[in-house]
């Protein structure tokens, strides 16, 4: 299996461990990821779009146009990119006016694009029947003592016309993955609630409260770790968890792992290779639960 890999800006910098763990598990699963050469920012949901909509669409389209030349489907681990790229596909397929404007800009740099490249979320690939079966075979350590709250957030499942990974209100596919690696799933209120996304920068107070509600509802439902499938969500729930604790004067201390890191642990991959030392809320306390020989 071979895909054009679009890491997205955060998986490449602040959430580098997401990319590392993605690559590590894909290697085990014989999924070849070919990085889109010279990829650029996807347009970042509303960040660029609100300022210059056409420009933002053209940015996303450039990535897709390069991928078209690679003649492969694209896969991204970032839900925000997954949304932005698929939104661009939809606009270019349905809105002839925008399509011709964007293509005039693309023509300037030697590309053209009409919305034909298929964009998958990494979770989608891992949860296809064939790969899931393979995951089952490759599991070395059953993570039986882990109660995992799978966090879907927004752009894996919403809006369903663009992001259709699973049911928008009651998604369960990540939970299937959790059970495949031997852990128990946790059902909780916050699994599709928004973490605040980019409000973390513009309105931190508000974003902290949104993330707090998610973390607490997972914890109160018995989770001992939370799994994300998006670097933006991971940043808000993990890197900012200390800020949440001090802002609201509470103790949460809930390790937040990229779902790829969990799968990696089950494969018996060294935590260091999965970048677990980079997680802000130390996942060390769950290591004994995974029964690995971690130093």
């Amino acid at each position: 299996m071979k895909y054009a890999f679009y890491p997205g800006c955060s998986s490449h910098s602040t959430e580098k461990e997401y990319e590392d763990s993605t690559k590590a598990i894909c290697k085990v699963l014989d999924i070849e990821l070919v990085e889109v050469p010279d990829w650029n920012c996807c347009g970042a949901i509303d960040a660029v779009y609100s300022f210059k909509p056409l420009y933002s669409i053209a940015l996303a389209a450039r990535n897709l146009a390069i991928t078209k030349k690679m003649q492969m489907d694209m896969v991204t681990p970032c839900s925000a990119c997954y949304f932005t790229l698929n939104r661009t596909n939809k606009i270019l397929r349905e809105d002839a006016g925008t399509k011709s404007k964007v293509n005039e800009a693309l023509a300037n740099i030697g590309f053209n694009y009409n919305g034909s490249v298929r964009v998958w979320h990494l979770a989608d690939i891992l949860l296809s029947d064939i790969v899931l079966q393979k995951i089952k075979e490759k599991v070395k350590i059953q993570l039986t003592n882990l109660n995992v709250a799978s966090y879907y957030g927004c752009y894996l499942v919403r809006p369903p016309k663009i992001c259709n990974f699973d049911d928008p209100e009651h998604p369960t596919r990540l939970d299937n993955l959790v059970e495949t690696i031997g852990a128990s799933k946790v059902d909780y209120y916050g699994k599709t609630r928004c973490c605040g996304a980019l409000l973390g920068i513009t309105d931190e107070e508000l974003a902290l409260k949104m993330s707090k509600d998610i973390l607490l509802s997972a914890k109160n439902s018995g989770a001992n770790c939370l799994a994300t499938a998006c670097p933006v969500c991971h940043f808000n729930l993990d890197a900012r968890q200390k800020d949440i604790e001090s802002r609201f004067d509470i103790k949460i201390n809930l390790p937040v792992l990229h779902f790829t890191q969990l799968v990696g642990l089950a494969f018996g991959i060294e935590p260091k290779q999965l970048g677990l030392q980079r997680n802000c809320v130390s996942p060390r306390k769950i290591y004994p639960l995974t029964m690995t020989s971690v130093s």
Partner: protein
Amino acid sequence: MSHEKDKLTAEAKTIQIGVRKKSRRDFIKEVMKMPGGEKILECIQCGSCAGGCPTMFAMDYSPMQIIKMINLGMKEKVLSSSTIWVCSACYTCATRCPRNVNFPTLMMSLRNKTIRENLVKDCAKSDFHKYFFEVVNKYGRFHEPELLVKFLDMTNFDSLLHNARLGLRLFKRGKLQLRAPKIETSWVCSILEKTDQKESQ
């Protein structure tokens, strides 16, 4: 004489009301042409959008109210509301709306309108979009440290301290890439130039 004057005032009033009605109608028409505004007239005020919105407690008007206000042509109130900046674009409302009102996309379009027409009240929030754009335009990719530095409020000691703590936390774990991304960016300008041209058409 006074009779004449009354007549004139009445006439002026009618004209005034006429102008106001027209500007309201124009606003509604304008919104309907924006991405996200296509279905606003179909809203049945059911409240599903407001009921599920995770940021409503921080808005001055709920999504349902904003749609009603747009449909009444209340341009100034809508464009100066905090709602358009507070929406986190989570798409919960759009997913549940029985009439397919695409509220979050409309909020992005309204942000764009207020920025373009210089109607912004809360500069910090609109500056975010500008800075983000500048960073992406410079490097071709997003580069967190540069955006955060642009965003720092140098006069607010508490916030500086708070951000320094976050920065340190990230730095200790090797999460803060101080080096800017290096990709070929000569193409960025030509995309910008062309799309700017098209945008203003």
